[in-house]
């Protein structure tokens, strides 16, 4: 077992190295000089060569590429992801501030998706008829609706016309949890709409499938109340595939935050990554990609190990 874990960990370290090298090369071979960008934003006169050289020197960009690479690797393995070119803020600090915000948004959206998705899907599967038609139609629209369009409509209606919610921005959860969730409601709903539609569809088909099973018929035949049968025997057994969908969907949600964070001006990690790429802010982009890669690799290792514990055959292969 130990050998198995060691092997998986070694593979993980190898993968991290590969990701680090890939991201470093990709960034440095894409056109665009961070020093020039730092000194020219959209309009205004072009920076002087002296000014550019000064900034390049300050950022360490005048070093040979291989030296920069070694410096970067050295930094990563000593826990130093460098400072943002643009803001001088340490990258770890920036990620430390942004990651929890994105996770909060995604967590809230997942909650809404699960609650509404399961409820609507169960209702559609149980009731059938026009309820089913409505839910199916709604979920088709929900899946097809682009996040930024739905977000814009929500802002138009609930922020600008009704003035119930702020049009965007950020409230610190630690300082004002109610206010934070309040300002997160619209972004979370726009993020959740597609996901809950997916969950609703999955729940509906699972419910329909389970309803036809023998044990449901048996439960009905012994005279249990229909609602009890549904709750105890249908819904419960329908949720296993739904949980799988939720697991997969969580990753997709993380990706969708790029648009939602932009529309709602939410200062999460996705917007930091987009700005980092736009500004060729190498340390920021590298840092975020490393963190995401580490998260995925770690999750995979943990899953592998758990599989290994559960099923001895995996260990042998």
């Amino acid at each position: 077992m130990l050998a198995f874990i060691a092997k998986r960990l070694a593979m993980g370290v190898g993968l991290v190295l590969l990701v680090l090298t890939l991201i470093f090369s990709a960034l440095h071979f894409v056109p665009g000089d961070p020093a020039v960008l730092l000194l020219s934003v959209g309009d205004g006169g072009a920076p002087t060569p002296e000014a550019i050289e000064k900034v390049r020197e300050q950022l360490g960009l005048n070093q040979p590429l291989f030296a920069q690479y070694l410096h970067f690797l050295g930094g990563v393995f000593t826990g130093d992801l460098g400072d943002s070119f643009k803001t001088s803020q340490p990258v770890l600090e920036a990620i430390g501030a942004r990651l929890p915000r994105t996770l909060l948004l995604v967590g809230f959206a997942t909650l809404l998706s699960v609650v509404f998705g399961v409820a609507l899907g169960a209702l559609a599967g149980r009731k059938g008829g026009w309820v089913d038609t409505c839910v199916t139609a709604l979920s088709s629209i929900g899946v097809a609706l682009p996040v930024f369009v739905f977000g814009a409509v929500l802002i138009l209606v609930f922020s600008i016309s009704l003035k119930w919610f702020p049009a965007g921005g950020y409230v610190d959860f630690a300082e004002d949890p109610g206010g934070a969730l309040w300002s997160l409601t619209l972004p979370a709903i726009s993020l959740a709409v597609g996901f809950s539609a997916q969950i609703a569809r999955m729940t509906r088909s699972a419910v329909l499938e389970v309803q036809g099973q023998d044990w449901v018929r048996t439960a009905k035949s012994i005279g249990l109340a229909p609602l009890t049968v549904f709750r105890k025997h249908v819904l419960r057994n329908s949720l296993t595939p739904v949980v799988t969908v939720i697991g997969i969907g969580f990753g997709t949600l993380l990706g969708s935050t790029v648009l939602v964070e932009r529309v709602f001006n939410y200062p999460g990690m996705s917007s930091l990554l987009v700005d980092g790429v736009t500004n060729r802010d190498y340390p920021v982009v590298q840092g975020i990609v490393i963190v995401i890669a580490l998260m995925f690799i770690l999750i995979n290792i943990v899953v592998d190990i758990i599989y290994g514990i559960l099923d001895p055959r995996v260990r042998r292969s």
Partner: protein
Amino acid sequence: MSFTRPNRRNTWLAALSLGAVAALALTGCGGTAAPDSSGGDSSATQVLTFGLSADPAQPITGASQGTAVNQLLTMVHRGLMSFDADGAAVPALAQSVDTPDDTTFVFTLHDGLTFSDDSELTADNVKNSLDYYRDVANGSQLAAPFADIESIESDGGSTVTVKLSQPNTAFLQYLALPFAAIVPDASLNPDTANWVGAGPWEMTNLDQGIGLTMEKNDGYYDAENIALDEIDVKFYADGEARTNALLSGDVDLIDYVTWENFDRVADAGFTVDQVNGPFQYVQFNVEEGPFADPKVRQAVAYALNRDNSVLAAFQSNGEPLYGVSISEKDPAYEKNLANLWEYDPEKAKSLLAEAGYPDGFPATLLATSQYTFLQDNALSVQEDLKAIGIDVTLDAPDWSTRVSKGNEGDYDIAVSGDSGMVTDPSYLINWVTGDNTYNVSWGYSNDEIAGLIGDGLRTTDDAEKHEIYQNIGKIWAEDVPFASLNTRAQAYGFSEDVTGFTNIPGTATFYSGYMLANTSMQ
């Protein structure tokens, strides 16, 4: 086994559902209990919430880092000069400016000046700041405009005397730039964030990606006339999000209203304060190929349907520009300078034929997809050039790649937008010196124009300056260092609670942050 697993999941889901309900209830409470920000203690403290168009970079002393940083610098800094509501350079930290002769400027400072860190601001600080800015080695953007400075002398008290090697009629304008402010000696390096100044407010709380707080600097020389106790700056990089923030009441004032939102903001009862500022143009790669021939460049200048570009890119919130953009207040101004060419596709075709391209030729047009107005202008240019036989392929990468390709001359023609650092027409020098930067014609230089611009800057005789620019216009029309397209409107949007704020006209619009000193909340 198959029963226990769903059971556990179900409990977990039930817990989640409960959590969601609780969260919704909580947010409901939060919403109803939230205080109304429009009421309250406005008489006690004046707070302006400003939606800024970018998440700004950390300011570097002496560097020009774009609009967003400039806006913030106008709040925390003051130079010897500043701009007034009409865009004229007026004394700021200098109480008075004497010019005993054309090359000598004697600045007398206000009494008791301090920086926001409460340290004293002396004449020596002024000298040190200006010396730093004029040194090319420091990479300052001001080194070229300050090249005429011969000596700076401080009396150690309140007087600074600057001597120029030759007259420079734009000198005082450059001193008014937000990045030409007087700063503590400790800020005179590229590593120290340039936040400490002698401006009306001081930056007290920077939250990367979210916003920052400006609190009134009681040590400011004119503090009693500053109404705003606090400016709460929030960053909104996306134009739509920024507009929504204004319309929903999240912020009181925004900069850079996007053109498609002008009507929307005005219709909702907000002020859209717009002025025509920066200009858009077509630049050429003159090193090789057809555009090395001035006749082909002229053909392009005659082929452009500028009305169409204004409509396409700015929804008519701009003006067609048929020549060079010069402020109407400048002695150099004459209507014909803005009308060097006209829209005449037939003439364009015959110029192409004269240059040896009767059937046209293919070319690449560099623009960027990141700033849609540049891409829309490029699309309009592409249509116009196709009409005269130039088969244009559009290359519209992100801004960073656009800059990189521009700096390497990797294009035949490109569409750009720019403005002068100051309103003096000598800003045109950037396009004729042969410096191969991303927004000037690759490989183009014209010593004759450069010489004339220098003459224009030196002469203190308005009639002479006017005459010089007439000559520049003639050469420009023939040689076409760039073919202009249009000027665009730059607008601030604000609610009726904001009074006293005005958008400074022309390209000085980017320094309108100075007007926050006149602003108050109702």
